[in-house]
């Protein structure tokens, strides 16, 4: 289990007045949080609004964060509550889930796996980012690719990856770093190329 040291050093800085440290926490967790919120609202723009609200709430509640749980666990709960309350206040209350299938064997299922509710605007660039990253990963030497996939997809610690790949922990750290370097070289172009292409205005 992660010791959460990284998040806690950032959290402590925020608690001492350093707002820039909070940016780093947002950057790290924004996708996960939006993904989580999209369990409750399917529109990505609305999900982003709710995620934003959740982050702000977390910032304001940070003085009460004691470190008893991991920061992300705490943030996660705030996000769920924010999402649910947003849905409840938007619809009639309390929540009712619509079921859209009726089986004769007395069973019925929750509506919809979460579809890729892509809206045309804003996701072309997302596709480009995704393609770039995937291509870069495919181009990696196998040991680098394995290391970063085990880390990001399986969530294994360096020690676990070292055991899986039968190499020292230091090598794992180096491989993951080099994988990121290689991917980042290509990704930077998308983000920085041509007047901040990747960052939408407003």
């Amino acid at each position, binding site marked *: 289990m992660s010791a959460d040291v990284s998040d806690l050093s950032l959290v402590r800085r925020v608690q001492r007045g350093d707002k820039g440290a909070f940016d780093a926490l947002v950057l790290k967790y924004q996708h996960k949080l939006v993904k989580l919120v999209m369990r409750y609202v399917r529109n990505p723009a609305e999900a982003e609004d709710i995620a934003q609200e959740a982050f702000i709430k977390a910032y304001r509640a940070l003085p009460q964060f004691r470190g008893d*749980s991991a920061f992300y*666990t705490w943030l*996660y*709960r705030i996000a*769920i*509550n924010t999402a*649910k*309350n947003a849905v*409840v206040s938007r619809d009639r*209350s*309390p*929540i*009712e*889930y*619509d*079921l859209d299938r*009726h089986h004769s*064997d*007395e*069973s*019925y*299922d*929750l509506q919809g796996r979460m579809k890729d509710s892509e809206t045309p605007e804003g996701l072309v660039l997302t596709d480009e980012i995704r393609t770039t990253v995937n291509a870069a990963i495919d181009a990696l030497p196998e040991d680098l690719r394995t290391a970063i996939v085990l880390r990001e997809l399986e969530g294994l610690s360096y020690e676990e990856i070292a055991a899986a790949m039968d190499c020292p922990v230091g090598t794992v750290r180096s491989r993951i770093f080099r994988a990121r370097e290689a991917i980042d070289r290509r990704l930077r172009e998308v983000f920085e190329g041509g007047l901040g292409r990747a960052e939408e205005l407003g």
Partner: protein
Amino acid sequence: MPRKLRASGRLCSLALAVAVSGGALADEVARAPAQWLERMNQALNTRNYDGTFSHWHGGQVEMLRIIHRVQDGTVSERLASLDGSGREFIRTGASLACYLPDKRTVLVEQRPAQESLVGFPTVNDQTANFYDVREVGRTRLNRRDTHIITVSPKDEYRYGYRLWIDDTTAMPLKTQLCDPHGRVIEQIVFANLTLPARIPDSAFRPEVSTDGFQWLRNGALPPGPQAASLAWNAMRLPPGFRMTVRSAQVLPGSATPVDHLVFTDGFASVSVFVEVQQGQAQPSAVAQSAAVGSSSAYSTVIDGHKITAVGEVPPATVQFIATQVKAQDPAAGAAAPRR
């Protein structure tokens, strides 16, 4: 005589039949809502089911999953929070375990092998004195045909319910708990529900890993007569409540045995736990009140004993019952002497 009322057309013709044939059919019609409650309880107690539901209370909603199986007379049940806390309640036969990952603790309570069924609230003729049970309509809920049954309390000592009971399975697809003024204070709605013929044992294992957790189990009762030597009871009770169970046990994490009394009015139930007060009770702060969702708890110290009442009733009711509990000493005709 039809056991179920199926369509409003039929209801009309039955109503006519009532007018013509008199008493017996009228009783049948009047009993039907209570029968739905019995069928519902039967379904909840005896069928296998697996579902996800939302639990709404105090403006907050949580999702939970429930899996219930009856196999060879043994009940297995698992209730898991799907929203972050990771808490789970798993019952296998007589053993109840609460997994509390956010507290890194597991509470394990071993119930007596032969748990008396007398303790469960059962809807009967007496219940009608304190609750008004009616079917107020039929509706399609999530494409299922349901009966809407309301259970309205006749006084402020108890809560009311509105239940949407599935016509085919008698499962409560939607449940509202209402205060005596009819305001909804808690709601459960199933998002999905299946009634499988078989559920594997693996469905009743906790999702959380318990490495490093502390385990609190209930201990053995001390030898010799215990519950028998203490006759605790409530001197007065809210109307309709009667004692149905008395037992003694040592609860997990505790060192002292506790008497457990159960009072029920046929629909709601209240447990009273009596134990010897440990240490000095703060003189200024003996009465304590708490809530778990819509259920109420009240704790007080009387004659050196800590008395806690817990039940799905309004706060005033648990407080009333708790403060009425005394030890009986018929020989002396007085309450237990002060320690």
